[in-house]
């Protein structure tokens, strides 16, 4: 196996080259399948929204000696007969009970009943009551944030790179990332919670960040090559993506390691919902973001630019010159 250094060298000189641009039809077909698949997941599996979105009450009892789920249900039923309850054990000594939305008085009564059942003080019982419109408010605001952020990013990238086509490619790549990430997230059967929404918003920022780093190298290559280049536009883009490939791999690993750590600890040990939801969405998202930059955004950019008359003429000239040199050799 070649070392990372050797791979980096070969990618840099072009000795090894992955056809990100050359085989783009294949990559686009794969991306389309992934996006459609991800979009279908919610229909097949059904998406569960956390009580922040549906409204409801949630109780968490800490320091429980024996987390008996049936006892928890009984405690709730003793206050509100027939209430829908969902009980989960968290870690070794905590128990979480989710119920229909309760009134303030009922919430307090259930808190007391749970405390008595599990022989703890009421201070150890955390309770939340969430009105059904709260989650929707958060989502609506997030969508606004998304729209404004995208518009501003579009402008900044277009100004910096001096072509709106990079903005378009970056943002299409971003949509790709979001759809696939949300699809995978719901495939795991996780509830969509506000923490998950935060995760998706982070992925948004990360995905554009990642694409920008690679696009900056593309800009450098295509810009510096100029008229004297022996490469077609597509080849220049492809070389740039290959030259930053080692960085893309390293960055993805480094970004995925800490989130993976949170995910692992949160999910396996003690189950802090906020942390697991955030870290799963980010963990999946960073990996998908790297994929999308390489296989969707970069080839798409090349596709958008190649048909510009100027570049088309230059590419034709280069290919013709290459043909001649091959013949003469």
């Amino acid at each position, binding site marked *: 196996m070649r070392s990372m250094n050797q791979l980096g060298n070969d990618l840099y000189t072009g*000795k090894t*080259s992955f056809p990100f641009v050359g085989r783009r039809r294949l990559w686009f077909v794969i991306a389309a399948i992934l996006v459609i698949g991800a979009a279908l997941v919610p229909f097949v599996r059904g998406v569960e929204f956390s009580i922040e979105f549906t409204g409801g009450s949630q109780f*968490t009892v800490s320091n429980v000696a024996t987390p008996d789920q049936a006892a928890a249900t009984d405690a709730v039923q003793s206050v509100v007969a027939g209430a829908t309850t969902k009980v989960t054990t968290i870690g070794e000594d905590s128990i979480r009970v989710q119920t229909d939305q309760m009134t303030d008085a009922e919430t307090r009564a259930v808190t007391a009943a749970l405390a008595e059942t599990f022989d703890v003080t009421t201070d150890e019982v955390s309770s*939340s009551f969430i009105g059904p419109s709260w989650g929707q408010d958060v989502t609506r605001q997030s969508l606004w944030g998304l729209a404004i952020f995208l518009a*501003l990013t579009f402008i900044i990238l277009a100004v*910096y790179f001096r072509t709106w086509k990079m903005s378009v490619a970056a943002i299409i790549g971003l949509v790709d990332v979001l759809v696939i990430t949300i699809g995978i997230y719901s495939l795991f059967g996780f509830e969509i919670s506000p923490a998950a929404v935060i995760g998706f918003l982070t992925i948004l920022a990360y995905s554009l960040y990642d694409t*920008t780093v690679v696009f*900056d190298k593309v800009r450098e290559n295509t810009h510096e090559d100029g008229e004297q280049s022996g490469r077609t536009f597509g080849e220049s883009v492809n070389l740039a993506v290959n030259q930053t490939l080692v960085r893309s791999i390293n960055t993805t*690993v480094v970004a995925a390691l800490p989130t993976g750590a949170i995910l692992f600890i949160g999910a396996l040990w003690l189950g802090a919902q906020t942390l697991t939801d955030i870290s799963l969405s980010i963990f999946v998202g960073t990996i998908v973001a790297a994929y999308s930059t390489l296989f969707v955004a970069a080839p798409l950019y090349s596709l958008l630019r190649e048909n510009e008359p100027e570049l088309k003429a230059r590419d034709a000239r280069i290919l013709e010159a*290459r043909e001649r040199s091959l013949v003469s050799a």
Partner: protein
Amino acid sequence: MATPTPVRHAWRALTGLIVLTAVLFGINALGVYAFGKSSWVPELALDLQGGTQIILEANTPDGSQPSPEQMDQAASIIRQRVDASGVGEADITTQAGNQIVVQIPGQADEETRNRIESAAQLQLRAVLYSSAPANTYVGEDGNTTPYPTPEPTLNAVPTAEPTDGSDVSWVTDALYAEFLAYDCNDDANDPANEPADQPLITCEADGSIKYILGPVELDGSSISDATNGLNSQNGQWAVNIVFDGEGSEKFGKISQRLYGLDSPRNQFAFVLDGLVLSAPSMNAVILDGKPQITGSFSQETSKTLADQLKYGALPLSFEVQSSNSISATLGSQQLQIGLIAGLIGLALVALYSLIVYRALGSVIIASLAVMGVLTYIILCILGWRMGFRLSLAGVAGLIVTIGFTADSFIVYFERIRDELRDGKSITGAVEDGWGRAKRTIYISKSINILAAVVLYILADATVKGFAFTLGITTAIDILIFILFTHPVMQLLGRTRFFGGGHPLSGLDPEALGAVYRGRAQFRAPVAAVAKTPAQRRASRSRAEAERRQTIAERKLAQQAADSRATKEGDD
């Protein structure tokens, strides 16, 4: 020998970083020791230290969106209520246009909840009786004695049916005894929720006077405007009120009734949330619905009263959107998980950096350490200056940014390696790699900062905490990149270990396939590895020629070689 410029530049940048760190620590030390308000530990949000958060939505009667001024007013009313219930260290903020977030340590009892949730209303009541706030008297024995709790046998029903709001027959024996014993500072008193059609015992908002007031005669909705301005006759600050049509008529009648009564029954009280804002006396009969309140106002106090009357005029009701109480145990558990996960994440990143970048990995680790110190102290200072509290989402934000931060170093190191591959010397590669990496870092990090700012402005409290830490750490990241990573690389590039390209340094030109190996030693470029004997000959002669080439020519040749190789790769 004169020190070369990059070295001097590097030392200057590092000194700058040390000074900056010292200043930050100094500021926090000032906060801790001189002001006694800051702390050496960042403030924790509710979900990490336990407590109760109630999110209220403020609604106007006609369903329209409350104005920002009304929201500020509403928040200050809620703050007053929470303070009145004796809860310490409450944090009350507004968000998203019509929401008020109340955070209090510990659990909120039923009484506090009810008090917080009740509607805010401005009432106008006639004054029946007023006195100093004392609830004690000096007895015949010369000792100060509190007034006794009213006897339940005292009559509580008016002996004669009161004819209007100023009728003293409202004041029954029981009410008067209660008034005498009334303590303005007792948290158990809750004048905000007393019935409107009954007389009310309450106090001036600052506790300086206590009153018995008649039943509500007008409410805030009949005030259409309130402004402050200078009285044209005596040049004093005054508050001008404008009543609407119906309000003017009612106020006219009241004014006719009150004018000429003995003090304090000629006074009229504006009551907001159960407390008297102002109780001016009626100095004239006002029939046009435009009374003016004068007195010992300053510009500021007249403005405050005008705002209170204006924005308190619309009765806001509060609906609980969500209420969240987290036990201290759950809070510390979540913090612990966050910290453990963060440490494991850091250790993994450090390990990976060392494997991939060898000794250079230690620069990443050192940069992350500097980052950690700066972030920590800035969180302390922000907790003091801006009331920033670290939430669970914020901790997640910090952990996630470990990856983001490390990326700026990865981008830089890869650029240095690229420059080495181009055949630059190590010191040259450090400078040129910096020139290129810095552009990439600036543009990509500004996208991150943009995301943080947009999220911070638009999102709700949970997301805000996350966006804030993301933004702060990105800014610190750029700072460290300029003031630490680059100068350290400049200095390391001049050491034997790194500058000589030791195999373990991560900067070994040979391992990186460089064409140029320092001190005018060359070897054949990797890309020119030939396949046929003819090509091999060509490559040898090319290597021969390269020894005589200028840098520019060499670069050109290299590019040509690259493009050939690319073509091979594509085929």
